[in-house]
């Protein structure tokens, strides 16, 4: 047998003994791996949500009612109230006044900076990293930084406006309009880097040969931007924009820290917080929370679709 020249006479070794958990089928393993995560999410996220769904149909007040079990069932009254009272609609509008300009500004700045930095230059790696620091710090901290700089008397921003440029100082955090502007500025400061990061990734992923083909074909710079850059970066940008829309809509901490939800910056989440923990109207707050959830779930759906589409395009 020719085998012998290369196969010394050893018997086929038996499998190593010991704890190998071979009886664990893939099915069982999948269940074991998934269970803790799903259970925790059910216990800490879903169960309380269902509870609060129940409460949203009661007149429960955490301060005055002895127990939630005895809270009065009021049907859809809370929802009706929340959707009909003009105060809530004002909050929706205030939220929109914040979300739309902020995300637009972040998009323009972030994409613009990405276009600017989409080239080889000295220090590119370092600069593109330090620019990202704002989005890593807590919104609370970002709020503190700027609250300090926006101080009407000793703040550096007013020093610049008044002492250097010679304009009237601005009461940044106390005036209705300028409070909103401050909020927009700070959010832009913190989250433009996010759009920048996504845009830059999109830009560097555009295959170079497309631009070369356009060069050979004598295409203009505008054509290259319009027909090569934009369509190829857009799927990613869309993901970034939807992320930002969701986050801006949820924004709470920044407004809370900057103005404590003062005039001009009482966006929806701040309003909700004040109903829940100022008035302790738990039932009503739960109802408003659910109204907010509907919007956020719609946005999340958009996001997942955008992600899937850009994944499909990658293949």
């Amino acid at each position: 047998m020719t085998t012998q020249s290369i196969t010394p006479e050893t018997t086929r070794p038996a499998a190593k003994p010991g704890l190998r958990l071979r009886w664990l089928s893939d099915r069982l393993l999948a269940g074991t791996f998934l269970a803790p995560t799903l259970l925790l999410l059910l216990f800490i996220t879903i169960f309380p949500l269902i509870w609060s769904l129940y409460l949203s149909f009661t007149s429960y007040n955490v301060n005055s009612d002895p127990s939630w079990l005895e809270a009065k069932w009021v049907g859809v009254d809370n929802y009706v109230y929340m959707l009909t009272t003009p105060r809530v609609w004002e909050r929706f509008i205030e939220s929109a006044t914040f979300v739309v300009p902020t995300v637009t500004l972040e998009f323009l700045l972030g994409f613009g900076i990405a276009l600017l930095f989409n080239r080889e230059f000295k220090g590119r790696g370092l600069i593109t990293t330090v620019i990202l620091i704002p989005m890593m710090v807590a919104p609370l901290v970002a709020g503190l930084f700027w609250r300090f700089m926006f101080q009407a008397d000793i703040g550096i921003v007013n020093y610049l406006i008044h002492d250097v440029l010679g304009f009237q100082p601005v009461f940044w955090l106390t005036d209705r309009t300028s409070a909103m502007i401050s909020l927009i500025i700070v959010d832009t400061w913190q989250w433009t880097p996010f759009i920048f990061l996504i845009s830059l990734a999109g830009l560097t992923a555009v295959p170079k040969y497309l631009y070369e083909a356009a060069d050979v074909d004598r295409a203009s710079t505008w054509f290259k931007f319009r027909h090569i850059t934009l369509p190829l970066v857009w799927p990613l940008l869309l993901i970034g924009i939807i992320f930002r829309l969701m986050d801006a809509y949820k924004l709470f901490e920044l407004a809370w820290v900057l103005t404590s939800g003062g005039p001009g910056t009482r966006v929806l989440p701040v309003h909700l917080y004040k109903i829940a923990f100022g008035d302790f109207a738990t039932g009503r707050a739960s109802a408003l929370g659910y109204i907010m959830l509907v919007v956020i779930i719609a946005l999340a759906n958009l996001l997942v679709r955008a992600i899937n589409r850009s994944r499909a395009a990658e293949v």
Partner: protein
Amino acid sequence: MSSITLQNLTKRFGATVAVNDLSLHIDDREFVVVVGPTGAGKTTTLRCVAGLEKPDDGMVLFDGQDVRSVSPAERDVAFVFQNYALYPRKTAFENIAFPLQARNLSAAEIKAEVERTARMLRIHHLLDRRPAQLSGGEQQRVALGRAMVRRPRAFLMDEPLTNLDFQLRAQMRSELKRIQRELDNTFFYVTNDQVEALSMGDRIAVLNAGTLHQVGTPQEIYEHPADLFVAAFIGSIRMNFLRCAFIADTGALVSADGGWSLPAPPRLREGAQKSKDPGQLILGVRPEDVLLSTEAGNGALEGQVYVAEPLGNHNVYNVRIGPALVRVKTPATFMLDAEARVSVQFNMARAHLFDSATEQALT
């Protein structure tokens, strides 16, 4: 060292049927090549044998024993993946030793076995490198080493040569064949390259779209393709196919556009008569069975050179005959000008006839 039998194997992924009612027997110590284009179901078949996929229907037998409930680890087969699946953080030595560590072997035994294998594959000097530091060919050998280091019941190979450049591929072909002879073990080898199939297999199974088209020795497959697909897929220069009709009165084959008529020898005549519709036939002629000449010959067709392709050891002429383009293989010394008018003769003794409705061979 086992025989492998597939019985009515079927595997679906959602709505797509990857393998459709496949039956195939591989003898102990036989080298069987399953060949087919991408998506033919070759890899799925192999993965069912390895136990990496569960068949929806049918079964896999090793030495006549159903292995349905046997896990991949206990099937005791070796598998070489197309992308080699070498562990990037382990050295070549550690990669090859990995299967042995699952068994009761001392470090010294493992070392001896790994080095024996490495020497056989001539990668002994590379054992302390990591996969990233190895060339494609060397990685390929390490992957083979990991399969060979233990003595499995069978080797399953999934396109192991596909990622090599062609010079290396040719070299590895004969080397793999030699290794199989030395190991004297069962090889179940999957490829999309008909050259590999012809050159390495004791027998070849041609698979397309999950269906087995033909099983046979390389010679049988090449000389007697069972249907149009096999005829087109096997052969380095594709077989020529010409639509024609059989005229029973004259015993002639007439081209679909009426441009030519050739007398059919008895073998083709018999074949044509087997068809339900002798008016719709396909004549198949291999490029080496076409004869070109610059002088008009008796019964020859008229054609014009469309594109000439010199390959060094032979030439391929693409010749227009009416609307059809016929590939002709000639010796390297046979030179024709571009656009030259030529006469073309088919070696009808080696021609094939297919039914155009069933696509089955009639001869």
